[in-house]
């Protein structure tokens, strides 16, 4: 244990984080193309509609990765409050005519030339703000008032997101926040209490008048085959894809489930197509890459030269880990079906850019290690 706590190889983290990020991003492009070309052909008459989109976002994301990798991460502490402000404003804009409503939910903002998902952006803003808030005075984590303030901000943001409605993003936001408080050293008892409160809140939301739509999705999670043609359709088609793949998969490009059976196979359910084409072995390899990336990110957090760097890296890593876990849980029918993209692999969008930027931040944090600071001194 003690050896793990020491951060001897922290410089290598820089390399590992970069390499795993790039591997995931490139693998994502390949899989997005494989998963989407049939749908693209059917809807747009060419193979490349979705993969072009993905490459564009990936290009922007790589630029963000490089910029954030070069930009001193303390800038996020300086602009923590304005960034939070922007995030909240974007969340509020949802309720203006800028909001785009799809399938009974308003989750996007239409800025004519591009769309923005405030629910994704607020996650990063909150990570910056919470890290900055506790880094100002690490003792705050032991005091009631500041913690109450953080929870209030979390609750406010989550509430705005629930109104979209987007339960999974709200949940992710809360989980990231609580996770960061946990790392910061928040009392375990209180975390359990907050957790209990969170569960209670979920129950309340589900019982609310708007909850019927959500409840339907929750029911589906218990037995997706019960309504295989209705609310369970997507999950069932995902499971059929996974099952068709079996242990070794049907081979790259050979998925049949992507031929209009599984809706939007390039998005949240891309891992089902990966499972079909590359089998359990392929999915396992992908999860291992994620785990190694998460491990290296946490290592950067542990070796960060200051509290802000530690909590920022920790929050970013939690963001990544929670999204991967939620995504796989949804596709494997272990959690109620909800729209969570698979970080870096699913068809790109705001989230891809944000994740690549966050990975760039991790790389930057890893440059400033305890050793360097000690050497400077």
């Amino acid at each position, binding site marked *: 244990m003690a050896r793990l706590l020491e951060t001897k190889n922290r410089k290598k983290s820089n390399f590992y984080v970069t390499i795993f990020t790039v591997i995931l991003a490139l693998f994502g492009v390949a899989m997005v193309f494989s998963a989407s070309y049939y749908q693209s052909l059917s809807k747009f008459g060419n193979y490349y509609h979705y993969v072009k989109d993905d490459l564009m976002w990936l290009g922007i994301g790589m630029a963000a990765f490089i910029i954030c990798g070069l930009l001193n991460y303390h800038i996020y502490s300086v602009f923590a409050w304005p960034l939070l402000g922007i995030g909240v404003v974007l969340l509020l804009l949802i309720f203006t005519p800028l909001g785009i409503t799809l399938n009974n939910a308003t989750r996007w903002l239409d800025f004519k030339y591009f769309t923005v998902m405030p629910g994704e952006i607020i996650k990063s803003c909150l990570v910056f703000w919470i890290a900055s808030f506790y880094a100002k005075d690490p003792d705050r984590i032991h005091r009631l008032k500041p913690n109450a303030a953080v929870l209030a901000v979390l609750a406010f943001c989550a509430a705005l997101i629930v109104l979209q409605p987007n339960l999974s993003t709200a949940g992710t936001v809360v989980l990231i926040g609580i996770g960061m408080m946990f790392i910061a050293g928040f009392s375990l008892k209180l975390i359990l209490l907050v957790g209990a409160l969170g569960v209670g809140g979920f129950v309340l939301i589900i019982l609310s008048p708007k909850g019927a739509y959500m409840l339907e999705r929750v029911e589906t999670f218990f037995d997706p085959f019960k309504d295989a043609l209705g609310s369970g359709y997507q999950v069932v088609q995902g499971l059929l894809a996974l099952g*068709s793949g079996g242990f070794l998969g049907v081979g790259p490009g050979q998925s049949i489930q992507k031929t209009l059976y599984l809706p939007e196979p390039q998005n949240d359910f891309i891992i089902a197509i990966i499972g079909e084409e590359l089998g359990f072995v392929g999915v396992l390899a992908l999860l291992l890459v994620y*785990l190694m990336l998460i491990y290296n990110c946490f290592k950067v957090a542990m070796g960060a030269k200051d*509290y802000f760097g530690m909590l920022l890296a920790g929050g970013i890593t939690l963001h990544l880990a929670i999204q991967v876990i939620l995504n796989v849980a949804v596709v494997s029918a272990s959690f109620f079906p909800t729209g969570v993209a698979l970080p870096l692999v699913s068809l790109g969008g705001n989230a891809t850019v944000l994740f690549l930027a966050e990975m760039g931040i991790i790389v930057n944090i890893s440059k400033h290690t305890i050793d360097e600071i000690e050497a400077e001194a």
Partner: protein
Amino acid sequence: MAKERAKTTQQNRKRILAAFGIVCLLFLALTARLAYHQIIKGDEYAQRAVRQQTADQVVTARRGSILDRNGSVLAASATSYTIWVRPDTVKSNGKTENDRIVNIQNETNALAEFLEMGYDDVYDTITSDRRLIRLAKNIDEETAKLIRDEQLAGIEVVETDSRSYPMKTFASHILGMTNDDNVGLTGIELYYNNYLAGLNGRWITSKDSAANALSYGTNQYYAAQDGNDLVLTIDENIQHIVEEQIEIGKIKNKADGVMCLIMDPKTGGILAMAQTGEYDPNDPRAPLAGDEAKFEAMTSEEKVAYWNKVWRNFNISDTYEPGSVFKLFTTSLALDYGVTYMNETFYCPGYVRVADWTLHCWNYPAAHGVQTLTQAVSNSCNVTMIGLVQRMGLKRFADGLAGFGLTEKTGVDYPGEGLNMLQNLTSAGPVELATMSYGQGIAVTPISITTAVCSIANGGKVMQPHFLKELRDTDGNVVYEYENTVKSISISAQTASDMLSIMEYNVRQGGAGAVKIPGYRIGAKTGTANKPEAGGYSKTDLIGSVMVVAPVDDPKIVMLCIVDTMRTTRYGSTSAGPICKAILTELLQYMDIEPDYSAEELRQLRSQRTTVPDFVGMSVEDAMGYAAGRYLNCEVSPEVESYEELAVIDQYPKAGEDVPKGSTVTIYYK
């Protein structure tokens, strides 16, 4: 603290490690969950997936054609198109209610124009409550292409293999028909369905969710095995002659129906089989010409009954009372058992007592008096027949009829054969036996009695009646040839030959003169019977029939013609006789049978005059037939109202007078 940057504590590091631990645990759980789906449940899910991903299409085998013995196509398979509609799709085509209404109207207009259907009919169908409904079938390729190109919402154009009968009503009762799925429903189409149908193939492919075939995945093709072509013993030309003449005969006789059956006595092959009221198997449910108004008024149950009647093959499925034609068997068997001989003379007192009954000859109180066997048959003497059957006894008579194949179905290759109704052949009393000897109180199918008479024309060999000549594969190679089979031996060759001479005498000198054609040796026996009706026999409705063998020196055909309820004459010889003669005249020529005139015939042919024969003592029926053979018309006085066997007691002009051909002889029966 404010200036100096806060440092990470050991607790923070522990918490991060704990967080990573939790992440690892969750990853492990998810890996287990994925393994469960992919490995444990993998096969089950994969099967479910395959079920939705594969299209299992039937590759339809081509149904074989039906040909006549010379290769003319009587029934063939043709590609046609069926238009299916998904009304839900039609009704939801358009963004606004107004759009939808306009779209439906446009679609209805387009379809009504292409399919030449009424606007309302199309509209009702494409907006019905059904999930999938057929709008039209038997659409030609051109129209199908037009509709397909139009890309109408909810309309599917499906290629189907449909049955086509190029000669329409021709031989319809032989061919039968198929249902919408191209499966034989009646007739030859049903009997030989397995050979005609072939074996459908399958095409299993992976498809996308919109049912488009994928270029990868499963692709297995099992070719269809096309059905065999069926060559029948039917001769298109003979069938055509028959169909034409029976229609004429039906009109001339104002009859309910006329049926005719022609067989080759040496093979048992059926050369022609027809009945009036042939339907069109291309559209079998349409009413026959003239029945339209009646049909419109029918309930659906009545329509079904009507169709069954129209589609029924009388010659095979139904029975009729043969009357005097049956005397051929009584006489044959008596000769064969040796209970009589050709030159034996019989005395007919006009009646005979059987048990406690007195059975009269038809001309009682007159009598046939002394006559030879040949004359007795020609005179249709019931008393002689009773005598012959009594000499044989029930057992031998019954055995003899079994030898003719009359006691059971012939086994002809056609579905729904009827069974003869004879008297109980083990326990029939003397009266039943006596009446049976002259063909009363029994009913037989045309196919069975014709088959039996064929054996007389074939030296006593009963041949299996059949329609099938051979089966051919799609390349025209013969894969099966029907082998002519002798079912049984009815009588000796000598008896058969004697019987032919009796039948020939009956045409030359007796009551079957109506079928006489100069230059040809033709044998025949006529019969007339009251039509059975509920509780007995009809007083007014008659069935007349003639059985013909030609030529008797080398029989090529046996023909039975039946007239159901003739209304312009009263006898088999005068109703069915002329029809037989008309058919024979064309048939013998078609069959290239050269006429061979006797000196007497040549003299008569060349002369414009003829000698009036002596009709007195003959039955009115025979007299009329005989007159026809002598180029004379015959008029009965007073007019006969009901069917009775009447004896001629006087005639004018008298016998022996020389009159021009075509003169009328008036005969008197009282």
